[in-house]
């Protein structure tokens, strides 16, 4: 128990928690979007994230020839490298998520199989992806090159404003705003909301179910890919099982905020990030997962559908 750290490092913990929490939120979208539409836990999303971090690595090392040992770069070259690796990871993850839908979910969905069958095939996909990567990397952790010099932009109430943390926070919030607008304003977003309300009825209304579901997976993949990029930029390393812990945390965040709910994923992620930071500061990092789950159980007991309720648009009756 170490409560003094809370008063002395309060803002610093908040800032780190916010950045970590937003990474969780972005991964949580991969779970929550799919759950909203299909009512299925997208188990393979954690491995989509893992592949995303490796995509960042491949873009930065193999395509742009930056080395782990090379010096941080600046100016236009830096912007190019960051943007290319961000979009590279997003596209790779989106394509992979679509592939996962095609391989693990589509056939089972069309046959009207039980939800557990889809869960197991998703678990199979997850094992396949992480084991494939384990064999490719020989279980060795990989370090991503430090392109962005981690300078401090100054201090705010004693918290060190590191540039990578600030970029992560701002960019993640922008992505959420864009997604929120897309789902609430655009025609395709409307289709997604319709399917999440009722599959049958939306099909009667002439919505192409397969297309909408693939699109949902792709959006989840895009945000998961963005999360992978931010993770690689802030933490600068990755390993074949990196998805496991982050995936569980992100899924918890989605449930905490109300699974199937986009804003819920946003706030749930932030709440979880802050909670983890403070719990590990006070109790020690080994107890952080325990604290998180105790809080989750308490929240669900008080409000069984999560803090912000269920569904992309509306709670199912």
């Amino acid at each position: 128990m170490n409560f003094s750290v809370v008063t002395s490092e309060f803002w610093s913990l908040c800032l780190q928690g916010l950045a970590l929490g937003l990474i969780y939120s972005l991964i949580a979208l991969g779970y929550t979007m799919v759950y909203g539409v299909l009512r299925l836990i997208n188990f393979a999303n954690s491995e989509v994230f893992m592949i995303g971090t490796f995509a960042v690595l491949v873009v930065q090392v193999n395509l742009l020839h930056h080395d782990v040992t090379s010096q941080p770069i600046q100016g236009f070259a830096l912007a190019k490298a960051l943007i290319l690796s961000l979009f590279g990871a997003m596209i790779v993850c989106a394509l992979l998520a679509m592939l996962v839908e095609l391989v693990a979910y589509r056939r089972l969905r069309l046959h009207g199989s039980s939800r557990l069958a889809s869960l197991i095939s998703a678990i199979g996909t997850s094992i396949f992806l992480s084991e494939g990567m384990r064999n490719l990397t020989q279980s060795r952790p990989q370090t991503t090159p430090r392109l962005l010099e981690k300078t401090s932009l100054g201090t705010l109430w004693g918290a060190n404003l590191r540039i990578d943390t600030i970029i992560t926070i701002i960019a993640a919030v922008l992505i959420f705003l864009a997604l929120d607008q897309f789902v609430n304003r655009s025609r395709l977003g409307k289709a997604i909301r319709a399917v999440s309300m009722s599959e049958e009825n939306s099909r009667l209304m002439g919505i192409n179910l397969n297309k909408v579901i693939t699109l949902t997976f792709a959006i989840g993949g895009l945000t998961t890919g963005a999360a992978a990029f931010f993770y690689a930029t802030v933490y600068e390393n990755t390993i074949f099982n990196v998805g496991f812990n982050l995936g569980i945390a992100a899924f918890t965040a989605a449930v905490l905020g109300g699974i199937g709910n986009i804003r819920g994923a946003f706030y749930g992620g932030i709440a979880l990030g802050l909670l983890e930071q403070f719990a590990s500061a006070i109790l020690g990092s080994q107890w952080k997962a325990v604290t998180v789950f105790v809080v989750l159980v308490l929240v669900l007991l008080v409000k069984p559908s999560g803090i912000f309720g269920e569904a992309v648009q509306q709670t199912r009756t």
Partner: protein
Amino acid sequence: MINLRDKGAEIWEGWNRPKRTIFVLLMILLAGLLPFSASWGPTSFLNTPVTSFENVLVYPVGMFILMALGLNIVVGKSGLLDLGYVAFFAIGAYTQAIMSTMLDWKTWEILPFGILFAMISGVMLGLPALRLRGDYLAIITLGFGEIVRIIAINSTSTGGPNGISGIPNPPSVFGIKFDLMHPEHYFWLVITMILLVVWMVRRFTVRRPGRAWEAIRQDEDVAALMGVNTLVYKLWAFVIGAAVGGAAGVLYASKVMVISPDMFKFDVSVMILACVVFGGIGNIWGVILGAGILAYLPDRFRFLTDYRQLVFGLVLIIMMNLRPDGLLPRKKREKISVKSEK
């Protein structure tokens, strides 16, 4: 797809009682002889390269069948998704480890306590978690599984990350010794426990709890409207499942003699769940078959070394796409209702 389960049931219906008894006894005898098949010519292809076949039969095969049967009560019979079943296995194993090394108790005396502690933790977890809807149960049980492991790593009485070593083997019963030289004796013990669990599940299925579980699985709201006390029966399913897991844990710890938190990771929960769904969820024979195959294959195909798990993942995907209801699906009558639920 041909439904092997219904074919089998038809033949079974056609038999009279003595025929059935002889068949069952024969099957049990065959299962009991399995440990010797590795050294007998025609069946020696069963032999596993690294661990000896007799040991593979005890763990993973026998243990996974036992645990899959326990989980089947929770997932298959009453339709509750449990992603942290390994927690009960761990609680049983640690009960055996701590009580035998500190209090010097014998395995048979500890077994009831292992079951009891697993059941108590099942109630503690189930009371809050089972009030919630299905998918939340999944995440809470998953969290519980992790919490048990984290506590085992971080507390001193469980030996921390190194675990506990020097756990004694069970004392011999009727002259049957349980030690390293006689893995087949453990296998017979596991078979006995599997038979007990099968008998218990079959008794439950035809009585009130079984009907209540079936109603809850098909539609919980309707079951509640019909006067089924859903929370109580869900809790019972959960606790009975936990008891089987705890018993498996006690046996496992006394067989391997050394346990550490690494043995109780999330993968084990996933593996047991995969066994249940792969074989045919809700159907005892399917679960036994599925667990047997899934637990045995990775050891048989050791020569694939690093690609073993990769192939395992692939097998899960392909099998689920080809036979989404498992190898031996449950009865048709029950299956129709599953489809209409979608």
